[in-house]
């Protein structure tokens, strides 16, 4: 199975994009040509180096405070990737654990968790995360927490329905008859069956987390102002949209690229890991 995963072109393209972003995030201080917060007031709003009036030392130009856009993009990847990985892992763990409990035991526990998800989902997600951020205050940890608190429901609902399908298989009853305890049945029989779905959802959720973080930092509700973030760059560039449109487009493109990377990866994983799709492809 693993071999077919890496043979899929979608997975490879997705992994390449995500890989580049992750490398940027981890090695930002080594890659970035400038300090992202270093202001250079004599050369503000420089266009990219290849266009007329550009400066080769600021490859993608500068913003209204003369900060190097490329360096800010590279440092911005740090926030985006940290949030993408940690927030979606957190949402997955919370949502999946509840889903396994609800789907496996059924009955009242299921009804309780199911209603909680319903109520939770009835709040508009962006508003809910904004309220959470207002209450908690800015900072990376709080952004992650806000996204986990909003998005666990997505995992919970999708995985629960998959658990219900697997739960009805006779091999679950067989495992019980062999003397497996309930937690053991869940871990050894049900989790492996839902793993492909879990991986797929996780990579999709990473794309969503990038967008939510961008929205929050756009309204100044994410990390503090001296940490570069893509949403913040979009917000800053609004003032000078006519003089320096590239300042707006470049961070948007970065967000787009990150989401695209995660989505292609997720789609590729779904196609290669989903047992039903594989079976159909083979016959």
């Amino acid at each position, binding site marked *: 199975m693993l071999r077919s995963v890496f043979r899929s072109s979608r997975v490879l393209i997705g992994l390449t994009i995500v890989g580049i972003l992750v490398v940027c995030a981890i090695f930002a201080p080594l890659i970035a040509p400038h300090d992202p917060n270093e202001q250079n007031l004599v050369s503000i709003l420089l266009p990219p180096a290849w266009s007329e009036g550009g400066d080769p030392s600021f490859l993608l130009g500068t913003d209204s405070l003369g900060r190097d856009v490329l360096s800010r993009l590279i440092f911005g990847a740090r926030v985006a990737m940290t949030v993408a990985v940690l927030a979606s892992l957190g949402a997955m763990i919370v949502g999946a654990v509840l889903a396994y409990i609800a789907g496996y035991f059924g009955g009242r526990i299921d009804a309780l968790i199911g209603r909680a998800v319903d109520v939770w989902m009835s709040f508009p997600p962006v508003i809910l995360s904004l309220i959470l951020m207002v209450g908690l205050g800015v900072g990376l940890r709080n952004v992650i927490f806000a996204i986990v608190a909003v998005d666990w429901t997505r995992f919970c609902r999708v995985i629960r329905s998959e658990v219900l399908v697997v739960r009805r298989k006779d*091999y679950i009853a*067989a495992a*019980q*008859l*062999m003397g497996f305890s309930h937690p053991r049945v869940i871990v050894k029989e049900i989790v492996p069956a839902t793993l492909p779905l879990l991986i797929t959802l996780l990579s999709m959720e990473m794309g969503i987390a990038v967008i939510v973080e961008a929205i929050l930092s756009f309204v100044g509700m994410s990390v503090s102002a001296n940490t570069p973030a893509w949403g913040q760059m979009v917000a800053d560039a609004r003032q000078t949209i006519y003089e320096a449109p590239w300042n707006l487009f470049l961070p948007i493109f970065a967000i787009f690229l990150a989401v695209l990377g995660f989505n292609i990866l997720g789609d590729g994983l779904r196609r290669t890991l989903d047992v039903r799709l594989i079976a159909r492809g083979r016959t």
Partner: protein
Amino acid sequence: MSILAVDNLEVSARIGTARIPVVSGLGFTLQRGSVLGVVGESGAGKSMIGRAIAQILPQGFSVTGGLSFLGQDLIGMPAEQRRMLLGRDIAFVPQEPLSGLNPVLTIGAQIDEHLARLGIGAKRARRDYALDMLNAVRLPRPADILGKYAHQLSGGMCQRVLIAMAFASRPKLLIADEPTTALDVTTQSRIVELIRDLQRSEGTSVIFITHDLRLAADISDQVLVLYAGRLAEYGPAKEIFADAAHPYTRCLQLSNPSVHASRIGLYSLPDRMPGISALGSIAGCLFGPRCPNVIDACREKTPRAVSVGEGHDVACIRSDLTARIDPPLRQAIDKKPYGASLLTVESVSKTFSMTSGIFRRTNFQAVRNINFTLQQNEFVGIVGESGSGKSTVARLLCGLETATEGKLVLAGRDVTGGDKVSRQHQRAHIQMVFQDPQSALNPRRSVASIITQAMEAAGQATWRDRLAKAEALLHEVGLPSDAALRFPSELSGGQKQRVNIARALCRAPEILVADEIVSGLDVSVQAQLLNLLLRLRSERSFSMVLISHDLAVVRYLCDRVFVMHKGEFVEAGPTADVFDHPQHPYTESLLAAVPRDFVADAARRDRRNGISPADEIV
């Protein structure tokens, strides 16, 4: 005049660059108003005939040869013309009645659409015509049925609707592909009777495709037996059944248990039919590798069909020896003396409570006041139709459900409560063999890991211990030890069911609960499994509760039987007594639904004449 003439028909599949003939050299003619039964196990290519006629073959398949309907060449005919024939002059009855109907249209709308397409009647008259049609298939209150959806009707009713639609255009040829396989036993016989009656009154020719030789012999005038896409035998139905000339037909018959005779052993053919990819690697006769009469000459070339009687052809060079293939002696694998009483079920009931709407709760009593005891080494059967509560009994015995009333005593201990200790007690003594091996085997575990799951649960076992145990168990159930590291998807249906049995045996239980373990398997594989269970009992001694809708299987294995109807045991007793002299009308109706049995009839005749081969055996 012949309705359908098939001459040297070949259906081939493209695999890679090679073309492999899936059906080859098939020829027969179907006379007006006669019924042809096409018999074979899964993979025999029997559905290919219907598909070749309709030209609905899977991708990569192609048809060559002669296929003419009323003198018109079906293969060369333009698609448009064929479409006019199909549904009007050639009608189909599918295997799965529910998937044959559109779930979002009412029955009335679908019949109307069908009639409009055929151009039958003006718009006003169509409703009356539809009512007549439904009356003809003996559906009660046809006016109500027109307004219903497929899911509101039972499988048998859906099949009647489809049969009505098939006969609506007064077709000249009806192709019924396993029309009763998905239905209950009693429904099956009524559907077969219905097709037969309509066929007679309309003078329709029918191709009746089935895996059940006995059913085919019962309904058909001619029978065509297929093996791996090749004609094995073709001839008059009664003659083929009474005097099979091809060893495969004979073995099929001998491996099919009978409701009326319990004492003959079942013949179990080794191995299974070659798959498409294996066809090329067998030299000469394709049945050769499994044939009891095989000699070197069989491997030299593919046998041609030769006539052995009036309109009776057989593709075997040693057909004169076929009648000498005998069923095995049963005593060799037969029963052991009973031991102490193991299990007592005292007036056990199970009520499910279901929520309907938000606040309303309805109670459904699935099992009502059942009583029985089970002794060591005893095999008892529980028979009944689907929905009779048989499977709930199985789950109650294993402790997957808790009884709402009554008492369950297992090996001297009351396990009714369903607390942890009694569950452990139950698990040590009772194991279950599940119905559907597809769902019962975790596709992500290797066979060895599945079989020795009980050791994993107990902890401490190393993988090496488990592998050794798995190989021992595989050997017991007749699978090669290299199967241990394979995954369920690499096994055939029969092999999976063996793994299923091996897993249940791992904890050496004293009682096996087997829920429909052979349904959906081919006859020859079924015979292998039934004999396996008998052999295992003689080797390691255990009792079994066999739950089945198949009376013949129960008769073959079980000494006592309980007939279950709507959650209750309506009749109980020694299997031979209950099946030979049923007391309860429900038991009678179950027995009446079983196709007539020519072999048993013949055996009974023999007994009257003083020759009783069956009695000599035991």
